[in-house]
């Protein structure tokens, strides 16, 4: 990911508009376009991160998650951290809780798009697998990246 954007101030209201983007494409154009958009956009947008993961491995995902969740005061921990597997537990998702606190409408497919589709696309590009078990209402999830046998 390009370094510049992470040096900028954090405007958390953007999470609410992201939720609206998901709702718009889902309701107007259907799940097929929604899934295709987030998958293709993730591969394009995260190209620098994908390149770093290919070169240096899962530690680059760990660094990326630490940076973005720290910047937004998320509560998280890494439960497993090896070259073959990274398990990341989010206890308090800053996006979900900012939308809850600000009264924004959270689309029912928010976590599917912004975590499941995006991270699956990143993992696949790098030769890894990804799974997530999320509770959108609680703003918590368990994410797992691993290298297939």
């Amino acid at each position, binding site marked *: 990911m390009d370094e510049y954007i992470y040096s*900028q101030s954090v405007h958390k*209201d953007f999470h609410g508009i992201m939720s609206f983007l998901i709702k718009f494409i889902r309701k107007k154009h259907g799940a097929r376009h929604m899934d295709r958009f987030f998958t293709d956009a993730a591969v394009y947008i995260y190209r620098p991160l994908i390149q770093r993961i290919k070169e240096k491995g899962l530690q680059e995902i760990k660094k990326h998650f630490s940076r973005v969740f720290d910047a937004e005061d998320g509560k998280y921990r890494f439960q497993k951290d090896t070259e073959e597997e990274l398990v990341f537990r989010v206890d308090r998702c800053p996006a979900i809780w900012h939308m809850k606190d600000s009264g924004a409408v959270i689309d029912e497919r928010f976590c599917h798009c912004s975590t499941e589709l995006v991270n699956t696309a990143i993992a696949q590009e790098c030769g890894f697998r990804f799974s997530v078990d999320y509770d959108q209402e609680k703003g918590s999830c368990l994410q797992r990246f691993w290298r297939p046998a």
Partner: protein
Amino acid sequence: MISANEFILFYNEIFKYLDSSFGKQDVEDLWSGIKDTYCQQIDRIIGQKGLKGMYEYWSKTLGEEGGRYNITLTDDEFIIDMHYCPSMGKLLNTHVKPYSDYCGHCPALYNDIIRKHGFEVDTYIIDRDKSACRMHVRKR
């Protein structure tokens, strides 16, 4: 989670996706939906405080978003001279290609609301690739 700092990149990409898949009108429908859903605060504050409300709103949001700009408020004018837009600035400093009418989202979100409250507004894109524009609001 797509972080708040990464949002602008997805925002830009969805404009491209909708335009290439369904045409420009679909992008404008998206902007209209965002205006109706997320611009209630600015609608309310302009309705209550007029030009001073615009000053209050953009001082706060641009203060959070960053960029380089001057805001001018007089008794009958409100002007944003955007020297480096924080939104377009993010695109210009990454590998992503900006949507051809990325800057169009700004007047699409705000101009109808401003006019509704009795003001004239003009938006000038000075140089998209330098992230520079001007919004000029006047009492009618």
